[in-house]
């Protein structure tokens, strides 16, 4: 197998999987089997490519030329490799979890769900391996459109409203701002290829640099920079595995990944550092980090709280790009991986709690930790990783981000990062603490949810969600720990982009 | 152009007058037949414009007689024959449509047609 072929396969496998899922729609077991096999095949293909990339190879393949000089092309570089690994790896876990969740909750339209899921992952692969901004944009839109049916999955009025907000914000920012930025770039630079060191240096100057950067940054709505973050909480109406996909794997990570790509390969961090064009972005990102954390503290709905936590954590990545130093970029890129592992764990736990007890509000979850120890244990590990406690994955990204901020002389940002960690503690730990240390209320406060056959007959016993639903968060929680020890290999993968 | 030239160009003044009269009728009359009449006047004005533009005072018809003579330019006249044909077809078609509208609505007054359409669509008379 040549590397070009493998690269093309990373796109072909998920789309072929989507077709096969459609074909096998009448036999759910086969259908889910197809999903799992596709996910595994994809991950193995990406993994197979890893060695070459670590050795410095840059496999590339051109699919077709849309407008003369503007091809649809793929090329792997370290950042994309990293994102590709995260997305394809977590798809396996998410598929396992989806099977448990969708069956456990008797959701409808499961075939549509798995098809859209496969297409979304295919689009994420396209984003990861895009060789130019144009290709990236196409898959970015494909990702938006393929996740719309997932968000509207329940087809209730609320779901439709949320999905409309989701689609509205993502489409309007991407077409309204990002596309303009892309065409502008094409017009001044004559190319859209991702080139180490950027393509804009010397082509644009003065006030136009920050304006173009702003068009990109707010145009990439998926990065959820305030004030274009509204779609994220709105998309909370989706089933939990979708939220996990949106918030931890594909969509938001595609957003911040695009931010990184633009900063590193379109502008070039040197160019950003010299012109100071990203100065404003540092402050907007820092403000998003703090404000979103504050909002998260006010939410009682667990998924809403996690959503705002995501908004906050995403801006770490933007911050890493905005400080425009090598360490910042490394920290931001690490954050893509580390946050993915941590946040997907938290979402899986939220879904497991919902599947087992149909509870969504944090205040109702008092004492649940004793009933669902595995779920809450995984939640604790995920939360600690997000906060950045060693030996958990999240600590590395914060470490490098702080180094990056220090290199750039932004001492205030170090303070912001520390305050943010404290805020994380304030809104994540109480969930676990109440679960474990407070006794369960004697009478279920919500008779309506009592009918869900969820409250255990013997209060002291263990009553977990279905096996698939518990297995997934435990796996990712273990991943959070493992990633702490493998951070060095990720650093080596990323080193080439930070060296100049 | 001096002031004295203006009466000399009276044919153009007539053209402009007719044109504006025609256009005004089209806009202001609600009766569809009258609209067509206005349209015809409007088009006729343009025919006159073309004809007077080809005419040379003292010129004769452009028939080859072998003697040096002043001709009127025949081309605009020929063109306007075509335009007249177009105009007649338009008038005929317009009137045919008016007949059909009369059959379908029972009226050829614009405001009554609008009222009928409104009632058909919303099931009640228009409220001002």
């Amino acid at each position, binding site marked *: 197998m040549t590397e070009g072929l493998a690269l093309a396969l990373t796109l072909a496998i998920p789309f072929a999987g989507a077709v096969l899922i459609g074909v096998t729609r009448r036999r759910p077991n086969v259908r889910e089997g197809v999903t799992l096999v596709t996910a595994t095949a994809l991950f193995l293909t990406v993994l197979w490519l890893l060695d070459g990339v670590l050795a410095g190879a840059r496999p590339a393949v051109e699919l077709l030329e*849309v407008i003369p000089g503007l091809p649809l092309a793929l090329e792997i570089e370290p950042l994309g490799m990293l994102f590709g690994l995260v997305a394809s790896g977590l798809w396996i876990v998410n598929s396992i979890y989806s099977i448990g969740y969708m069956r456990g909750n008797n959701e409808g339209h499961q075939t549509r769900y798995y098809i859209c899921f496969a297409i979304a992952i295919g689009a994420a692969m396209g984003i990861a391996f895009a060789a130019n901004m144009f290709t990236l944009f196409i898959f970015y839109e494909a990702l938006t459109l393929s996740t719309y049916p997932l968000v509207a999955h329940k087809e209730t009025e609320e779901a439709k409203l949320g999905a409309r907000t989701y689609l509205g914000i993502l489409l309007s920012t991407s077409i309204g701002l990002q596309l*303009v930025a892309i065409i502008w770039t094409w017009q001044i630079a004559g190319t859209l290829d991702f080139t180490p060191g950027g393509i804009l240096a010397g082509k644009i100057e003065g006030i136009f640099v920050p304006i173009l950067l702003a068009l990109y940054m707010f145009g990439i709505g998926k990065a959820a920079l305030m004030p274009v973050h509204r779609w994220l909480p709105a998309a909370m109406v989706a089933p939990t595995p979708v939220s996990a996909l949106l918030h931890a794997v594909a969509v938001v990570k595609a957003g911040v990944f695009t931010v990184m790509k633009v900063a590193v390969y379109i502008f070039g961090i040197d160019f950003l550092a010299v012109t100071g064009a990203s100065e404003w972005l540092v402050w907007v990102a820092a403000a998003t980090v703090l404000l979103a954390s504050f909002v998260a503290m006010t939410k009682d709905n667990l998924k809403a709280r996690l959503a705002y936590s995501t908004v906050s954590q995403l801006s770490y990545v933007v911050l890493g790009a905005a400080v425009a130093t090598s360490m910042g970029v490394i920290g931001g890129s690490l954050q893509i991986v580390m946050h993915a592992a941590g946040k997907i764990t938290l979402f899986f736990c939220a879904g497991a709690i919902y599947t087992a007890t149909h509870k969504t509000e944090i205040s109702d979850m008092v004492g649940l930790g004793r009933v669902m120890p595995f779920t809450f244990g995984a939640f604790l590990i995920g939360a600690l990783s997000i906060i950045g406690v060693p030996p958990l994955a999240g600590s590395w990204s914060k470490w490098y981000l702080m180094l990056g901020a220090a290199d750039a002389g932004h001492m205030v940002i170090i303070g912001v990062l520390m305050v943010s960690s404290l805020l994380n503690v304030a809104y994540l730990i109480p969930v676990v603490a109440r679960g474990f240390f407070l006794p369960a209320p004697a009478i279920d406060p919500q008779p309506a949810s009592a009918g869900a056959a969820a409250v255990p007959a013997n209060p002291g016993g263990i009553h977990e969600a279905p096996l698939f639903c518990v297995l997934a968060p435990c796996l990712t929680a273990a991943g959070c720990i493992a990633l702490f020890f493998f951070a060095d290999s990720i650093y080596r993968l990323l080193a080439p982009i930070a060296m100049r | 152009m001096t002031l004295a030239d203006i009466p000399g160009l009276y044919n153009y003044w007539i053209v402009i007058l007719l044109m504006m009269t025609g256009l005004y009728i089209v806009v202001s009359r609600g009766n569809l037949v009258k609209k067509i009449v206005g349209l015809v006047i409007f088009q006729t004005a343009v025919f006159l414009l073309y004809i007077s533009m080809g005419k040379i005072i003292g010129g004769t018809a452009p028939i080859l007689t072998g003697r040096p003579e002043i001709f009127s330019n025949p081309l605009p006249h020929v063109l306007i024959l075509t335009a007249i044909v177009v105009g007649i077809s338009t008038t005929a078609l317009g009137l045919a*449509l008016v007949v059909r*509208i009369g059959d379908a609505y029972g009226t050829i007054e614009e405001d009554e047609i609008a009222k009928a359409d409104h009632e058909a669509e919303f099931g009640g008379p228009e409220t001002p």
Partner: protein
Amino acid sequence: MILQHLPALQIVVPLVAAPICLLLRRGDLAWGLTLIVSWAALAIAVMLLHAVITGGVISYELGDWAPPWGIEYRIDAANAFVLLIVSGISAVVLPYARASVASEIEESKHSLFYTAYLLCLTGLLGVAITGDAFNLFVFLEITSLATYVLVAMGAGRDRRALTAAFTYLVMGTIGATFFVIGVGLLYMVTGTLNMADLALRIADLGDNRTVLVAFAFLVVGLGLKLALFPLHLWLPNAYAYAPSVVSVFIAATSTKVAVYALLRFLFTIFGLEFSVEALTLTYVFLPLAIAGMFAASTVAIFQVDIKRMLAYSSVAQLGYMVLGVSFGNVTGLTATILHLFNHALIKGGLFMALGCVVYRCGSASIDEMRGLGRQMPLTMAAFVIGGLSLIGIPLTVGFISKWYLILGALEAGWWPVAVLIVATSLLAVLYIGRVVEVAYLQPAPEGRVVTEAPRSMLIPMWVLIVANIYFGIDASLTTSVAGTAARALIGGTP
């Protein structure tokens, strides 16, 4: 021998077929003849385009009368492309027409319908091919008269088709008459009607008030014909109440041809410099185009009849085309010419989808669309793809148009305009999204069970939809032809 006379055959074949159609009396025979003629016209157009691209401009003297006295057919890349659009759409529409016409128009009128259709086709091809200003007027009126008749044939479904046709007739005639006045004034100062000749003599005249007045009359006249906002009032009703086939055909071709005529006058005859100096491009076309884009798109959002909604969308899309013109650079003009083609594919496909809905449900109001996503999956899938193309999602033709349009705006240095262009695409998201949501997320009305339209309608529709994607993925052919055409137009005399 025949190859030499291709330009004449392009017009003569449909023109002669029209009265034959009338004599045939029987609807199915008339349809068969029209189909053959359309495909022949397409074949001729393809050969002409090929000949122009490989061998340069073709000049054909009608009846061997040398220009500037005789009528000249002059074909360069620009009008060869327009010929291809018109005949291509016609060739796709006709297989679709049979079932649709049979369901919407009385049997006895079928041969009349195809006669008018052929005349309309003749006129459209004629406007595109001719190199003579007055001849252009004649063809424009042949088209228009035939179109009034075709629109009025929708009276079987809704009597408002009659009033729509009447309004169209009045406004179309005023437009045509303005056009004649302009041509007459040009003739007064130059003594010629041949476009190439006109271009030379106008350039020699320099600053001349009569030429300026002629220019104004021509622009307003053509503006009425191409439904330039705010001269578009005839268009929505005409498109909405016409028979489905007619909506498809005229939405995809007739305004396009008027846009082409405008381009020909602006760039070939008056020349870019004149048009810029007369300030028309910047101070007339630009604001009108933008106002049209916004106003018409906004009105489209509130339409109940989806055909009418698409009609307003057409007015907005014409705004895009005029906007490309107003940039006054090659990229902008390329965008306009590309969009002539791309929009024909988009609107053709969308109106065909609605034609299928009308065929089964009898109406295309938003209430009828409920639940159609499940009952007519192929039709609605086509509508969704066409809609995405209209919005300008990548890998569809709409995106290619928008790309060049924005590039043109940036080249002209008007980047706020670029932002406005994308802002209006978002309005398209609203009005298309509304239909899609109703079709897919709402249950069908009680008791209504409909199935897919017949295959003869589905296949042509999908041909256009696939073309939407194909030319969106591989735009090298269309962009290179449009680029050549733009340079041919802007480069002075044809």
